[in-house]
């Protein structure tokens, strides 16, 4: 089954217009004979019905489990409306909104997404999304390096291990020192004394995740202020869970320069961790240094409010090798899901309750599991748990 539409007569007429006898000629003109392949060995040619059966059978070899695995991907409830909206073909079959007048739906939705992500983090500016949480942290570090030309990055060792692996990959060819800050063996967090010990004049940025990989809430304010006290130019990069921000300190409250994270919790299916949305927010002064697309408000010729892609001279399609990043495709449709998700809970109070339910359930499970034979808590002092 393919999706081409020309019938015999169409083809005949088209070949005639081109002035050739068959399609082969178009390739023969330019492709050396030695390169042309006889045939490829790919099974297929299935009808829609056959495909449904074939893939349903493959799906049967997956098992849908009740998942408490956490680790950055969560099985949160997704309201019906989210699927309905991102299922609208006007959204999912549209292109990157370069032609603003033909893309107001996507552009306004991204503008709303940026506004909502700023509401959660308290930060000044958000971009239109990145690939995922891991690449968002990595891009945050790249941003910090562009601004702060020193040579040392300090990263919490309780940052998601796959984020750490991603960072290591990205910076393999950079002459920048990456130092992993040890966590307290008792409490599972980063202590202020560690910041005091490690931050120095060469520090570009300190990267702390909260809740960290172990589900422990960090005292971000203390850590951020300690960082600035040691070196006021050093940046504080917060890696945050968006739902936790309803009840725990927001990055703006502790003067983070950049706040990033994984947006999968906001109405996006788990899909083996491969259908996510990285978010990035910054202080106003860093706006022009941000990677990726940004939507801005503008007006049309008749003074009507509208939206456009903006600050584009940061981007690869304008700047090539001098761009702030190579990113082009991002996670637009998933950002839309986040936008729909965040708008219907009933405002701050109910959204805070949603966050509290998450804490409450995580603690309940923790307390119960702790009592089971063979299980004990990894950390022993008082610590505060969200989800992990």
């Amino acid at each position, binding site marked *: 089954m393919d999706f081409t539409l020309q019938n015999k007569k169409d083809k005949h007429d088209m070949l005639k217009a081109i002035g050739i006898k068959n399609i082969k000629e178009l390739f023969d003109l330019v492709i050396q004979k030695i390169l042309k392949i006889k045939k490829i060995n790919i099974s297929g040619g299935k009808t829609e019905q056959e495909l449904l059966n074939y893939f349903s059978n493959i799906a049967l070899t997956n098992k849908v489990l009740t998942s408490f695995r956490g680790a950055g991907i969560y099985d949160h409830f997704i309201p019906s409306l989210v699927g309905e909206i991102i299922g609208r073909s006007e959204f999912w079959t549209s292109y990157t909104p370069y032609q603003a007048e033909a893309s107001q739906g996507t552009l306004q*939705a991204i503008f709303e997404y940026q506004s909502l992500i700023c509401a959660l983090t308290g930060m000044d500016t958000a971009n239109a999304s990145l690939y995922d949480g891991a690449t968002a942290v990595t891009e945050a570090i790249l941003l910090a390096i562009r601004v702060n030309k020193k040579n040392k990055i300090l990263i919490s060792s309780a940052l998601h291990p796959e984020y750490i692996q991603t960072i290591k990959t990205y910076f*393999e060819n950079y002459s920048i020192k990456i130092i992993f800050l040890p966590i307290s063996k008792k409490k599972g967090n980063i202590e202020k004394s560690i910041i005091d010990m490690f931050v120095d004049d060469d520090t570009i940025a300190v990267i702390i995740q909260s809740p960290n990989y172990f589900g422990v809430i960090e005292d971000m304010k203390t850590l951020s202020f300690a960082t600035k006290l040691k070196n006021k130019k050093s940046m504080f990069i917060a890696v945050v869970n968006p739902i936790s921000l309803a009840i725990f300190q927001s990055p703006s409250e502790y003067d983070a320069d950049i706040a990033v994270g994984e947006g999968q919790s906001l109405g996006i299916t788990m899909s083996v961790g491969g259908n996510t949305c990285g978010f990035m927010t910054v202080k106003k002064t860093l706006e022009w240094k941000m990677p990726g697309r940004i939507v801005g408000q503008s007006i049309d010729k008749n003074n009507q409010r509208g939206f456009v892609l903006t600050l584009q001279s940061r981007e690869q399609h304008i700047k090539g090798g001098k761009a702030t990043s190579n990113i082009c495709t991002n*996670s637009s449709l998933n950002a839309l899901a986040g936008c729909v998700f965040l708008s219907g809970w009933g405002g701050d109070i109910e959204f805070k309750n949603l966050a509290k339910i998450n804490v409450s359930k995580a603690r309940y499970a923790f307390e119960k599991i702790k009592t089971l034979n063979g299980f004990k808590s990894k950390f022993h002092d008082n610590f505060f748990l969200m989800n992990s």
Partner: protein
Amino acid sequence: MEKLLNELSSKCNSAYKLNCDTETDIEIPENLKRKSDLGLPNISEIDLLRHFTNLSRKNYSLSTCFYPLGSCTMKHNPLINERIAKNRAFNLIHPYQPTETMQGILKIIYNLERDLCEISGMNCFSLQQAAGAHGEFTGLLVIAKYFKSIGQKRIHIIVPDSAHGTNSASAVMAGFNVIPLKSNPDGSISILKLKKILTPDVAGIMLTVPNTLGVFEKNILEISKIVHKNGSLLYYDGANLNAIMGIVKPGDMGFDVMHINLHKTFSAPHGGGGPGSGPVGVKTFLEPFLPVPRIKKKKSKFVLDYEKHNSIGRVKAFFGNFPIILKAYVYIKSLGAKGLKNASEQAVLNANYMLSKFKNKITVPAGDKCMHEFVLSLKSLLKNNIKTVDIAKRLLDYGYYSPTIYFPLIVEEAVMIEPTETESKKTLDLFINIFNNILFEEMSKKPHKIKEAPVNTPLKRLNEIEAARKPVLKW
């Protein structure tokens, strides 16, 4: 004008409700507590449904119109792909489930890797990359690691001036220095110029074949020979793979590394700009450097292999954008070998047919035949103070998305058109007529119609300059 979400907010019955079976009266230590308001909107389900439905109607999309958009292969996204991707046994799977409980997922990734190898002539693929540019970056890191492993210091990547902007941006991100290569007027590579810049410290060259002017690189075997003789590697930008499926393989041309955009060639949707997927393929000698984990078949079970000591590591969390991978695989199983070849042939036929209707009237810098896309230069036609961007906006009035304009950079007043194989002759004929009408009737007789365009869109021409000068980036 559609209101913003914050303007829609009211004290209404909210769209979603929390279950009240859980304790929410939890104590949060004062020093960790959020003090500031969030200011999230409260909107009912019906109002949210209307808001986003109304917004969706302000979008042009493949489900509403033809996208003659070059370089992006906006082909039809078959609905069966979406239906299969909605199966809960695909989207309710956690990445850290035991591999025995996600054999179906691993099988699809594994099988797609095999099929992409067969289509491209590469020996293995990594499917972890989230987009084309992410694939480029990964491929370049693989190249860097390879040279490191054999103890060679090679710091340059050659990028033709007709290439996509991502090429040089990715090379810089991967730590390389970019040497631009001036292309011939048809975007092809000048062997003489290439030889001049091919020094012993060049790691590789990034090529798009067919190139961004829609021309197949006739001398590709010679280029490949020269580059390899210098000890450098060839990178294939797969953005234009839709022209050559089942006809010729990048691997046979001599490419060592490549990426494919599953959301272009393999019909996964663009989603208004993502998520996408950019698998990276390599020849066997580069396999040790691919990202981890690799998916292996042990007896009849699929397993994750992290034991790759020379791997560049991972480039994102988990295994790649699985829903996009799945949609691409469904597409390949629906077309099969015959359908894939037919798709490329029809894509090339459609492009040449359109070109045949323009070539006698409009400058074509790359000759009168093309592969799956072609580039026109409007420079000699523009008059009455009309710019290429005005022509693009006027097309919106007729219900078409705009072609790619001002790219590639080596063509003045460029208009790049890629019809894809999934458009009918009738659709192409209508577009051809309207495009000719704008250029040859309206431009002289009613230039104001073009200057004022668009008028049939939800909003008139938007002011992009002001938006960048005084950025308003949230409500």
